[in-house]
């Protein structure tokens, strides 16, 4: 019984208090033909803690992780520096093993940290309010589209093809189940081309977009306004340190993926969805929101608020079915943003820009071509190679580099295109070595 503390005497005394002879008797309401015998499950045998660690370590070593290759792969998840303080805080049992703060008197620590999270996410995106987090960037985007449908009563969701392809797939699934139509907007020169909008509930733009280009949000806002659609932006939170936030352009909702703010890549989860909006939509926001108030003695404290939007109270009329969110990952983001602060986040962003600009030059000199030479980019860009990008990527793995994402599987006519990301974790030496390796491979 690894984590079960009962002694034989405990069990006997407890059964005596209950008035039962055996534990089996407690299960008497389960029909016999539905029961299985103890130890009859066909699963592996129990392991003690020492063997467990050895077993898991051995499995983990079968993977080629990013400590063993130099990564230029981004596409929605980024190898960023995580200060040691982040893990020190989120591994504290008072946070790690807490439940949702439904009992505010016992949860002020978490509630305050969520209030600080909401404040900083709203600030980063230039928006009025943010919620306490969503599952991830993709589902956050889908929830935003559904909110727009609720506000406008319209059923067409216009999404740029330069939104992350996996996010669009999740959006498609959500919209199918809600009988909403997804209309794709094409790109030109690496930027979204917004054509005619017909009866659009919203337009969805990624910023910077999947190809790395910093989209023209002013034009997108105007197109949305002209057609009575809501304007929704999926924005990179780290880029916000240097580029104008969507709020300044009048975005109605801004969503994003918070992984970059202190969350390990972890093969894609758990991540954390960011969700911010104009205050006029706050009563339609999905998920939890924390607010500041006072107790009967006038002492300031924090509570979950606007609770009548939520599923446990509102049931089928709730603004969303979301219950569990990503509180612990949001706490990681909170610690990250407070540790970085204004100056640290700017340095992270600026270092990424410098490394990216340097990589663009280095790869061009190595024989790659910039796919969108006129695009303004933050930390990610597309190169066109003389060969199939998947083949090049695979060969570079053998040389110790994870080169980026081949775009062929996602976009037709882009088989030779590679999406390259360069974070603050890369050095000049690594970039030079990467460029030389690429040169050899594409020669």
């Amino acid at each position, binding site marked *: 019984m690894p*984590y079960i*503390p*009962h002694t034989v005497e405990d069990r006997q005394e*407890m059964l005596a208090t*209950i008035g039962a002879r055996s534990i089996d008797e407690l299960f008497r309401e*389960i029909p016999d033909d539905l029961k*299985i015998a103890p130890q009859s499950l066909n*699963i*592996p045998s129990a*392991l003690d*803690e020492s063997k*467990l660690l050895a077993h*898991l370590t051995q499995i*983990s070593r*079968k993977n080629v992780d990013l400590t063993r290759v130099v*990564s230029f*792969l981004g596409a929605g998840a980024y*190898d960023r520096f995580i200060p040691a*303080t982040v893990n020190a805080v989120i591994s504290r*049992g008072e*946070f*790690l*093993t807490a439940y*949702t703060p439904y009992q505010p*008197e*016992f949860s*002020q620590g978490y509630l*305050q940290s969520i209030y*600080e999270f909401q404040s900083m996410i709203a*600030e980063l995106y230039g928006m009025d309010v943010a919620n306490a987090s969503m*599952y*991830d960037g993709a589902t956050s985007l889908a929830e935003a589209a*559904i909110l727009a449908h609720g506000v406008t009563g319209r059923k067409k969701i216009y999404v740029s093809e330069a939104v992350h392809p996996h996010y669009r*797939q999740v959006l498609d699934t959500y919209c199918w*189940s809600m*009988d909403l139509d997804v209309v794709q907007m094409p790109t030109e020169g690496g930027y979204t081309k917004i054509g005619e909008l017909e009866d659009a509930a919203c337009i969805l733009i990624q910023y910077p977009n999947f190809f790395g280009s910093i989209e023209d949000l002013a034009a997108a806002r105007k197109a949305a306004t002209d057609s009575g659609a809501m304007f929704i932006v999926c924005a990179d939170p780290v880029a916000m340190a240097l*580029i104008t936030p969507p709020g300044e352009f009048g975005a109605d909702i801004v969503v994003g993926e918070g992984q970059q703010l202190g969350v390990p*890549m972890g093969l894609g*989860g*758990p991540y954390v969805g960011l969700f911010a909006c104009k205050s006029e939509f*706050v009563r339609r926001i999905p998920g939890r929101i924390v*607010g500041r*108030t006072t*107790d009967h003695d006038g002492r300031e*404290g924090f*509570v979950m608020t606007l609770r009548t939007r939520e599923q446990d109270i509102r049931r*089928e009329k709730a603004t969303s*079915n979301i219950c569990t969110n*990503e509180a*612990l*990952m949001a706490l990681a983001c909170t610690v990250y943003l*407070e*540790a*970085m602060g204004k*100056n640290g*986040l700017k340095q992270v962003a600026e*270092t990424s820009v410098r490394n990216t*600009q*340097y990589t663009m030059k280095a790869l061009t000199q190595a024989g790659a071509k910039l796919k969108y030479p006129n695009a*303004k980019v933050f930390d990610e860009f597309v190169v066109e190679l003389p060969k199939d990008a998947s083949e090049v990527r695979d060969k570079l793995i053998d040389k110790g580099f994870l080169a980026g994402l081949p775009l062929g599987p996602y976009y037709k006519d882009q088989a030779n295109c590679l999406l390259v990301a360069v974070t603050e974790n890369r050095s000049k030496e690594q970039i030079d070595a990467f460029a030389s390796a690429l040169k050899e491979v594409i020669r």
Partner: protein
Amino acid sequence: MKGQAVRSVPLPKLIFEKSRKGRVGCNVPVADTPEVDLKAALGQVREELHLPEVSELEVLRHFTILSHVNYGIETGFYPLGSCTMKYNPKINERTAALPGFSMLHPMQPASMIPGAMEILLGVQDMLKEITGFDYITLQPVAGAHGEMTCLMLIRAYHESRGEGKQRHTILVPDSAHGTNPASAARCGYDVKSIPTDADGNTDLKALEAALDDSIAGLMLTNPSTLGLFEPNITKICEMVHKAGGMVFCDGANMNAMVGTTRPGDHGFDCMHLNLHKTFSTPHGGGGPGCGAIGIKSHLEPFLPVPIVQRVDGKPSLDWHRPHSIGRVSPYYGQFLMEVRAYTYLRAYGKEKMHEISHYAVLNANYIKARLKDVLPAAYDRPCMHECVLTAEKYKKQHGVRALDISKRLIDYGFHPPTNYFPLIVPEAMMIEPTETECKETLDAFCDAMIEICTEAVNDPDLLHNAPTSQIVGRLDETKAVKELDVRWRTKREGVKV
């Protein structure tokens, strides 16, 4: 007397109030590549950014102070019904932090991650066996997300048979979790409530009357949210199937069944699991959850992509699924939570798995028995992993509500049970101790509850004013809504309010 402040802690301030221009709270990477003209590179440069500026030590102290005014399982007993607040083993944290897992990029080619596939397949295989379903997918990222995914599969199933439009209603018992009707609505379904009978079971007559060819399915929690096993479960599934509907099992209460009975054998077509409840991944203050689902083979064509499978003994991903509902999350689900669940499942193994349900049920029945004179069970039957008690008599006779008893428990150092749920029990107190609590803890909790019930009779205001031991008392929730303050704004720096 209980209720005095037990410790003196520094009062937390907002981090923004500690900010001083120029400070940085970590040792940030320095660029060794050439400087660039940001305006030229980006086309624009943001001017204003109001993030706090504090030192590294200040950041740590800030959160350490906050942690002192927060309560977790590692702080004390957390008998929150329906939430399965069991011990979250530390070894799970250690394995999930191995760089071979935590440093994997979700878009890495599958050929680089055979170990990760082994974990996903291992969890799928063990959960398949434990639940009795034919297939498991780990893509849903939370319980409600798993519910929604199951409903999407049900919808796709009916659509494939040309009955998608016609079957527009989902039945949900009145005792169900709020996520059930909310998830059904999120899948475009109408929701119809089914009552509970006098014994605490699903009302079969009402169910029979509701079943027709407009029914897409029934969402049933078993054991129910009353902590009771549904003895007619096989019959219920047969009735719904006969009407052409599917039956979904809300797996929130799987902890009562692990190694003892398998929902897949009960007649269910699909179910969701909360790995953060039953399989010990930490709740984290409200997430991450982790919501695997199990399905029977007739729903298999519709599973979300990619499918993680074994072909000739080797792990592979299957993307080519013409009938799939698509993706429900961007990558493989909550992978690092799967690592934790895998570690936990392997710690129990074949030999000990059933002890989870055995001791969870023993503990719940023990609390129910010890409290029966002060707080009777809503239904006098053997409970499963949780017991639902009613405080109705204190409300009627002394004006003391379940909430007051709960708030008073805080002064005794215990987290309150779930209150006012399920909705059908007046002044409900739903207590789920889990298997990882020892008899001494349960006794201390029961002693406190008995003492509080005496206080309720003798000094009701002690309960009305509770808690008094924490840095705040009961907070004004109406004010929180009316004077909505959900973000900090610096007045000093003149940001628009």
